[in-house]
Each structure stands twice: as structure tokens, then as C-alpha cells.
């Protein structure tokens, strides 16, 4: 019998080694896998490469992971926020490597990794500093920049409901990077609000099929609220 359900966030992340590349879902607070990030902080792996749209807010979650010196490099589109002081300090001190990627290119690199695409030409960033050093090509009169897929060892995402096969549904704009990140990692871990019986999720409403998901952890609403 297939069961991807794991008892705790700690158990789901226990095997993450030092140096791992980890995709972390979320756009702002929506879709952010708060409990998984906290478990990663407690787990202790270091020298990490983190991929997220942002680079942490305030002093908790991803910001705390950065502040603890556990991250070697961050790949993101929008690190600068009103409350990104931990990232700002580390970046200015040269203690954290930043790879800045336009948001759509970030999403497509993740999608390409999950889809087995070896690279792609995108018009985004042509003629800008973010295309410096990259191969470019003119196709049908339009200029493109060559980009590589972004593979990862782990993905930590937040979904709404899951079944034991790992099928996932999402809620509103909390979907954001979840589906593509699940497909691009060797081990995708989803935290969810609720576990459904197999067959209970409407097959037409499943956004991430279980083939992309290795582990599922239920996070109770009460615990989620406490964490936030």
C-alpha cells in the first residue's frame, strides 16, 4: 500500500544533508510552508542553497535560517522588502551569495527542471544586466536569453488537502510556486491542512498529481496559527 504520509515535519526532513539545494514555496506569506521551514531550522543542515521568490521577512522562518548562517546561497527574484533586514545585512557583508533571477524566468527554470527540459530561450532580461554573460540568440527577429533548468534535492511546499498517494489541492493564491517546485525536486515534501481519504479528492480538482510528491505532513490549523 502506498502511503506518503509522514508523522511530523521533523521526520519528513530528517535526511536533508549539508549542501542540499532546497526549493521553498510561497509568495509572501501565502503558500509559505512555515512549519517545514521551522523544522529545517531545527534539523541543522548547513551550507544550503535556497530557492524562494523572496529572501525572508522579519526574524522568523527563512529569515531565521539565513540569520543562523545555514545558507550559502539564495536564488530569488525579490530579496528587498521593508522587513528583509537579515538578508540585507548578510548580503552587504558579503556573507551570502545572491543569484537574482526575474520571477518568470525563475518559475520557468523550475518548471523546465520538472519537465526534463535541458534549457530554453526566453525574451525576458535581454539587453539588461541580468543577461550578462549568458548566451543570446535571435529567432524570427526577436532576441532571447538562454536559461538552464533549476533542479533541486528537496522542495518544501504548502498545499491545502492531500491524500495518501500525495495528490494535492491548493487554496487561492497560495498555489503560486507549489506545483512546479513539487515537480523539480528529487524529494518534494508537502505540508497540508487536511488529509483526505483516497478517492475523496475530486480528480478534476487535483492540481499536483501524487507522482510528484514523496512526503506529506499534516499541520493542524491550531499549530499553524501558533507558528504565525
Amino acid at each position, binding site marked *: 500500500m502506498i502511503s506518503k504520509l509522514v508523522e511530523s515535519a521533523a521526520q519528513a526532513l530528517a535526511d536533508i544533508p549539508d549542501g542540499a539545494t532546497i526549493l521553498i514555496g510561497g*509568495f*509572501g*506569506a*501565502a*503558500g509559505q510552508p512555515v512549519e517545514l521551514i521551522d523544522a529545517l531550522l531545527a534539523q541543522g543542515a548547513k551550507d544550503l542553497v535556497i530557492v524562494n521568490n523572496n529572501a525572508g521577512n522579519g526574524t522568523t522562518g527563512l529569515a531565521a535560517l539565513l540569520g543562523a548562517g545555514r545558507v550559502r546561497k539564495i536564488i530569488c*527574484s*525579490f*530579496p*528587498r522588502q521593508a522587513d*528583509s533586514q537579515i*538578508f*540585507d545585512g548578510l*548580503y*552587504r557583508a558579503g556573507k551570502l551569495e*545572491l543569484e*537574482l*533571477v*526575474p*520571477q*518568470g*524566468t525563475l*518559475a*520557468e527554470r*523550475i*518548471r523546465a527542471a520538472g519537465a526534463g527540459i535541458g534549457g530554453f530561450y*526566453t*525574451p*525576458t*532580461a*535581454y*539587453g*539588461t*544586466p*541580468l543577461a550578462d554573460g549568458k548566451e543570446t540568440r535571435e529567432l524570427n527577429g526577436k*532576441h532571447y536569453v538562454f536559461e538552464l533548468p533549476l533542479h533541486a534535492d528537496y522542495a518544501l511546499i504548502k498545499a491545502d488537502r492531500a491524500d495518501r498517494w500525495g495528490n494535492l489541492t*491548493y*487554496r*487561492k*493564491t*497560495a*498555489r*503560486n*510556486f*507549489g*506545483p*512546479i517546485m513539487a515537480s523539480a525536486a528529487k524529494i518534494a515534501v508537502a505540508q497540508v491542512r487536511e488529509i483526505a481519504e483516497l478517492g475523496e479528492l475530486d480528480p478534476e480538482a487535483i*492540481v499536483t498529481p501524487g507522482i510528484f510528491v514523496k512526503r506529506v505532513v499534516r499541520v493542524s490549523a491550531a499549530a499553524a496559527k501558533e507558528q504565525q
Partner: protein
Amino acid sequence: MSAKLTRDQMAARVARDIPEGAYVNLGIGLPTLVANHLPADREIVLHTENGMLGMGPAPAKGQEDPDLINASKQPVTQVPGTAFFHHADSFAMMRGGHLDFCVLGAFQVSMNGDLANWHTGAADAIPAVGGAMDLASGAKQVFVMMELTTREGQSKLVPQCTYPLTGVRCVSRVYTDAAVFDIRPDGVYVIDTFGDIEPAELERVTGLPLRFEIPVAR
């Protein structure tokens, strides 16, 4: 210059040019104001890059849903007909040429439509690009909304951008507090002016050769 438009008046001027049936992305900052001025008799679908078409206005206090936010990470609402989708689909809508308009803020726009709006290039500045480059290269029409001059009185419409570029030859129209500029292959056209600003003064402030094509009845 006198009688410049307020930010809300600028937003209303942009909104007037968004037609019925358009799919539109409003960038963070000043352009978000445009949503408050879209004519009620036009059906216009707002796109937000974090995965939603059919974005509605801000919710009433107490009705916020943390899973329902816009690109500025502010709470929004959904309208009848709303669709949610993941990030790769959201940016396919831009790059794939499906989005009719985007409205972006800017540090500078050049006379040939180059856009600079993501980075000042200052040594200690934290760079952040978000979806700006994807929007600039993907939307069918890129509108910029900005004050014509900096606080120091320098024109932000320039012969050539000095800040790092967001996109090359991508801007089609620039809405400012003093005038509206259309950027065409054969030059920059002034298509609307506000208050009592004179053509000569616009040329002096921008330092650009301008052509004037202002409809008589405004």
C-alpha cells in the same frame, strides 16, 4: 510648471485608456491606484503575477484572507469569473503575449522606449527585480506611469537611460503628471498635456525633440 496631476488623477487618466475586455497587470506602487479608477461600465480583467485573473478590490476590514493577496502582498478579493493558476502559467500569460496591457512604475524611460525600473545600480543597493522584466518583455503594450521629474527636477523621460535596464524598446506610452507621451518608431509624441504647460517647456524639461499630436477636444 503648474497644475500637475495628482497621483489619483494620473491613475484616472491611465484608466481612461484601458478598453473593454482588456486583460491587464498593474505593477506594484503607483500603478496599483489605476484599479480604483477603471470605469464601472467596462469589463476589465486584472491579472496578478502570483497566480490570479479576476482580482477584485481590497476586502472590508476583518474579511482579509491570507491566501488571497496581490503582487504587492496586500489582501484582495476575487470577482465572479476568477481563475487561480501556478507561477509558470502566470508568466506564460505574459511572455506568451496573452496579456493586453501592463502598467509599470519607472525610474527612467528613454526616447526609444527602454525602461529602467528595478535597480539604481548604487553599490550598496539591494537589487530586486520580481516580475518587472517579464512584464516589460511580455505584455502586448507596456504603459509607464510616473512623475515627469525627480524631486530634484530632473526629467525621468531621457535620451538614454543611465540606470540599469529592465527591458529594451518595450514601453509604448508614458503617463506623467504633466503630459502623456506616445513612444513610436519615428519619435516621441505628446498626446495630452495637463494644466497650462506649454510645448516649449516640455521640450526644455525633457531635453527631447517632441512632436505634438493633441486632440483638439479634450
